[in-house]
């Protein structure tokens, strides 16, 4: 990934998206391979230093339900060094949480809960944010709002995103890069701008005039045939 990229990792349920994410974050030890963030090879010694520049929102936004929105963000901010009250208030504004900042987190609607989760992930101004299926359970309006937040953070604040999902319409609207994961293996990765070019190379295929969804299915079928999955 490069700076300001929005990379989508797409794959079916159980393909290994969340596991790969946990591997990258050091929550699960990988069997092999290494993780490099900002040109630093992540290991047990420098993990805490590297994680300082990383924000994370795993599947369901988690927070202390008995505390208010502002208290939740303040608690998270306190784990980092030198985060001012102004920075906390700015985060609240960017995420559009002003109207609910003094409400208990458990009383928020699903959309606001997800915004709070994102606020807690970006309050320390990370360079890259990892989101694990962030739009799961959101209604269409909230999905649109959440998408706009990501675009805003990416364009105006230079935050890169690594997003796992299986909702392909999201990918087409947001991504700069895409990686397809199948059975724990990255079977293809490309710039979103290259998609049409890639589709054209499949000239003999019936799916050559389709979109990302068709390309994804084609690659998965191809992988399954090669590896005799489901045969």
């Amino acid at each position, binding site marked *: 990934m490069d700076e300001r990229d929005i990379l989508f990792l797409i794959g079916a349920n159980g393909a290994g998206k969340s596991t790969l994410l*946990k591997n990258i*974050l*050091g*929550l*699960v*030890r990988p069997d092999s391979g290494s993780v490099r963030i900002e040109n630093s090879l992540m290991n047990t010694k420098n993990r*805490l*230093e590297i*994680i*300082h520049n*990383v924000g*994370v929102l*795993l599947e*369901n936004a*988690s*927070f*202390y*339900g*008995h*505390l208010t929105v502002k*208290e939740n963000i303040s*608690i*998270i901010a*306190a*784990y*980092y060094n030198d985060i001012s009250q102004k920075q906390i208030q700015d985060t609240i504004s960017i995420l559009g949480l002003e109207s609910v900042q003094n409400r208990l987190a458990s009383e928020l609607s699903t959309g606001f809960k997800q915004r709070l989760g994102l606020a807690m992930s970006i309050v320390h101004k990370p360079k890259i944010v990892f989101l694990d299926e962030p739009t799961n359970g959101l209604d269409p309006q909230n999905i649109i709002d959440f998408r706009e937040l990501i675009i805003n953070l990416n364009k105006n604040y230079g935050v890169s995103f690594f997003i796992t999902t299986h909702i392909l319409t999201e990918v087409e609207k947001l991504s700069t890069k895409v990686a397809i994961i199948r059975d724990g293996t990255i079977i293809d990765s490309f710039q979103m701008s290259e998609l049409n070019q890639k589709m054209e190379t499949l000239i003999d295929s019936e799916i050559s005039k389709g979109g990302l969804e068709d390309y994804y299915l084609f690659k998965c079928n191809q992988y399954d045939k090669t590896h005799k999955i489901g045969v």
Partner: protein
Amino acid sequence: MIKLIKLEFKKIQKTPIWLVLLVFILIFFYSCYDLYYDFQNQFWRDVSVSQDMNPWHFFINSQARKIEFCIGINILILTAWLHQQEIVNEMWHRLFLFPKSMFNIVLSKILLTISLVFLQLILVFAFTVFIFKPKLSVYYSFLFYGKYLDTPFFYGQWFLFYLPAIIKVAFFQEWLTLKFRNSYLTSFFIGILGLFLSFIDYSPYSMYCTIHTYFLKEITVSIIYIVLFTYFIYKELQNAEI
């Protein structure tokens, strides 16, 4: 570390944990009050005098078991509560994603537990000394040989006996809670069982709240437990997968 302890405090300050702790403070107070009436019984005064014991020692030692049990329960509740805040709110995995060592975060939970329980203990002793001392000294001053309060004894009781014992139980219980983090009831009931068996010398939950002649051995055992379970907690966190 102080910043982390404050954070842990913030996480629970708006929860009903205070009610639970208050109940146990009331039990302490009731225990003192109960004993006050025991002291009106000539028999206990005679026992104290016949054993040539400072009545304050007698006073404290005779309620030590109740205090031990209440302190133990409070450590169990606080440890489980602090962890449940993370588990119930699904914040446990997030703790691993902060730029702070997980060991330090867990250590701050233990230190908060110890601080709160020790604060309760000071409250109880303050209550005993400042509320009952005047009453006892007025009505039963003959029992106190003119020495109303043995200050070194009280400080010794707090810092030499209770504190190492509280730290020991807190570390042991924290390790249990980490080991069974997805089922806090397991560690809680092991704790309750341990408290009922705390009369066994040198068991993890024994508190030695009474003055013994072999107190150095008891303190040494506490320190060994603390070192051992600090190591176990460290290993548990190293092997933890989310």
